[in-house]
């Protein structure tokens, strides 16, 4: 051990912590930018995101039993509760939970599942962008 330079040990230690911690490839703001980009490409009528539209989408039902708020609560900065199983769901607003919307695979998985449950269809990119804009407008 004597011959290993300290700097190397520190670097190795840093690398090890990096591996142990979840790596956030994106910030929520990056994710919002990507969704906006995708909305521009897929929807010719898209004129920018609206947190107000996102809030309405989030809090109202759309022909099915549940709204987003049924599980995530009316206050996405607080914990929610699964409407069926009762399992506690960590806050969805990035201000209250820094992990949210930082991994593209999870963002895609949960929008796919939950839009299907709430709207009986996939959400458009502009709808996803609106909802994220709303969630990002909430200060914890």
């Amino acid at each position, binding site marked *: 051990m004597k011959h290993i330079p300290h700097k190397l040990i520190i670097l190795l230690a840093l690398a090890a912590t990096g591996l142990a911690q979840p790596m956030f490839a994106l910030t929520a703001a990056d994710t919002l930018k990507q969704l906006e980009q995708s909305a521009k490409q897929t929807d010719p009528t898209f004129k920018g995101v609206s947190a107000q539209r996102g809030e309405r989408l989030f809090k109202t039902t759309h022909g099915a039993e549940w709204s987003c708020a049924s599980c995530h609560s009316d206050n996405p900065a607080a914990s929610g509760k699964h409407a069926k199983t009762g399992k506690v769901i960590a806050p969805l607003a990035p201000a209250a939970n820094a992990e949210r919307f930082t991994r593209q695979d999870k963002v895609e998985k949960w929008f796919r599942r939950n839009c299907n*449950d709430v709207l009986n269809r996939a959400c458009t990119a502009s709808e996803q962008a609106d909802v994220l804009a709303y969630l990002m407008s909430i200060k914890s």
Partner: protein
Amino acid sequence: MNFSIPTISFILALLASGLTSAHAGEHLYSANNPKWKTECSACHLAYPPQLLPAESWRAMMTQLDKHFGADASLDAKTAAEISAFLQANAGRNKREATGKSPLRITETRWFKQEHDEVPARVWSSAAVKQPSNCAACHTQAERGDFSERSLRIPR
């Protein structure tokens, strides 16, 4: 037929071990897979694979987009890994007498027998709400420990 005493003891021991695994047992489930744990516990307790027969898990994992009224779909690779884990560690004694392979753990004959002493008021209490809520009484359920010593019926 003449059975020697050691033979009879052996048969009795076999019968006893069979009964133990089917009914009482240690109620400790240790099979683990990180993807199973992460994905299945996202919405509910990651129910131990031993609690359903392989046929039930196989069927369940092919219709995750309609999972007890919710879309729980996964990418194909993750679903295949979890399905293989569930089937490899599935229960072997718990099929319904009818030969059907139920998807709900709470509808298996085994589950009903294990819980036949639980009064109706406990099932409908605010703390339990539904029989799938294992952790309401099995305080160490998340660790796969369903033993009697970790059992606390909420008042």
